[in-house]
């Protein structure tokens, strides 16, 4: 109940402060404008449009997750609105969880709106959207859940700027973690080989959440893969939130 109250308040904050409107409108314009790509390309028009739409959802979703994720907690601390909230019988982990769930609701709504925009574009050029496109967007949403938990973790102990930098860095590394293992494995140094392997297993592998190419080329994705990635995302996010709660629990609000 308390977590939901905080989550709903977070959702209301984002809606009333009009924080994401500009980004969402911009994303919808780009998704809508992707229809024009048909005119500019020689072949595979539908696939290019789908690719463009999925990429837009991913990019704008990530921008929303990082920049709203890092400000959610730090804004409360900077504005001191957290004082009265934590002075109520609320555990700090409940506060963090509420903030996290609130942001996930916001992201789900935004991703949902972008998905609808994409479905309309695809409908115009091809017909009803297929389930693979849905799963591709679902995977993007899972990736956003993970990035949000990373942003939340950093925002519990560092400044907004540093949180943004660290989260962005982890996002880039996460998208390239396969490359880190591959190139690290080719090193002559045993230390680099081991370190790259450890990094590969510790850091999130965000490539797991990218089935956009399969969706565009209609290559089927197994249900077991969907379940495994969902479970992996939930576990990793839960671990990060637990870590964030431990750090947040000890924090002084000077």
């Amino acid at each position, binding site marked *: 109940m*308390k977590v939901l109250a905080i989550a709903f308040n977070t959702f209301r904050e984002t809606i009333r402060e009009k924080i994401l409107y500009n980004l969402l409108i911009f994303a919808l314009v780009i998704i809508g404008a992707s229809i024009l790509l048909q005119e500019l390309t020689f072949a595979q028009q539908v696939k290019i449009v789908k690719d463009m739409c999925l990429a837009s959802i991913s990019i704008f979703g990530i921008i929303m997750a990082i920049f709203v994720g890092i400000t959610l907690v730090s804004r409360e601390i900077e504005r001191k*609105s957290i*004082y009265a909230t*934590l002075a109520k019988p609320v555990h700090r982990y409940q506060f963090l969880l509420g903030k996290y769930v609130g942001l996930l609701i916001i992201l789900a709504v935004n991703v949902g709106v972008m998905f609808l925009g994409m479905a309309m574009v695809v409908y115009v050029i091809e017909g009803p959207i297929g389930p693979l496109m849905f799963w591709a967007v679902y995977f993007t949403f899972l990736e956003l859940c993970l990035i949000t938990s990373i942003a939340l973790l950093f925002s519990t102990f560092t400044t907004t700027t540093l949180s943004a930098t660290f989260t962005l860095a982890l996002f880039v590394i996460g998208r390239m973690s396969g490359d880190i293992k591959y190139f690290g494995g080719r090193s002559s140094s045993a230390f680099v080989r081991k370190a790259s392997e450890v990094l590969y297993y510790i850091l999130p592998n965000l490539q797991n959440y990218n089935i956009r190419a399969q969706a565009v080329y209609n290559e089927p994705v197994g249900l077991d893969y969907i379940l495994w990635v969902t479970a992996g995302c939930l576990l990793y996010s839960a671990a990060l939130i637990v870590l964030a709660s431990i750090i947040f629990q000890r924090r002084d*609000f000077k």
Partner: protein
Amino acid sequence: MVKTEKLTKNYKVGFLGRKMTALQGLDLEVSGGEVFGFLGPNGAGKTTTIKILMGLIFPTSGKAWIMDRPIGDVKIRQMVGYLPETPYFYDYLTGEEFLHFYGQLLGISSDVRKKRINDLLRLVGLEGAGGLQLRKYSKGMIQRIGIAQALINEPKLIILDEPMSGLDPIGRKEVRDIILGMKDRGVTVFFSTHIIPDVEVICDRVGILNKGKLVSVGKIEDLVGQKVKSVEINVRGLKEGSLSGFAQIGATVTNVAGGALISLPGEEHLGKALDMVRQGGGQVVSVVPVKPSLEEIFIEELKQA
């Protein structure tokens, strides 16, 4: 109701982590039903103490209890109300939404919340402003809605951090009246301030804090009653020649209608002064010890510390 034992808080400041003591070995006890004023200049450690009590910061050492339970116990906050210093609240919420939100965090049912919110808005004089967003509230209105959120759980203890700061005289009187109303209902009030005249009007006891240390604590009448700033002796019929002797004991003599007013800078020469009046053929009309105001005691304590 509130008890602290050797409560100490050190902060690390600067790049090198230099130690700064904000609170040093604070021993304090506030009884149930009393209004306790926590006085001190800026940076004395008042807000630090309050934040420790509310679990917003952690003491470096020492212990504290609220209603006999350690302050780390989140459940005690069910019975405590708190108004932060210069509060900032969610300004995108209306007054009513804001109170509903905190009511939800306290687990108050929707029906009870609605009734309490109406009562509280009336109590703090915001009955017409419940539907306005907080960003449209004045500073005084924010302070009042802050007090309302602190009262929504009908607390047994209310902790107010500088509730009068930034308010105009009318706003201060309103806050004062709310505090006195709480006292009448048996609520224990612990509040920090540096506006001393308010303290004299509403507090049962005060504690004076300076540089993280409690320099004085007690009932106002005891604090004021312990010290005599000067003694004024009103005399009649004193011979002209005998007036010069009073200067030797540090007294000043002022001619007033029908006699003279001898002002002594303390009590130590009172006996001698009275002897001199008698020897000079004078008659003592009155002897009045002049006690310092709480403000003067406050400043003196700070100087000594």
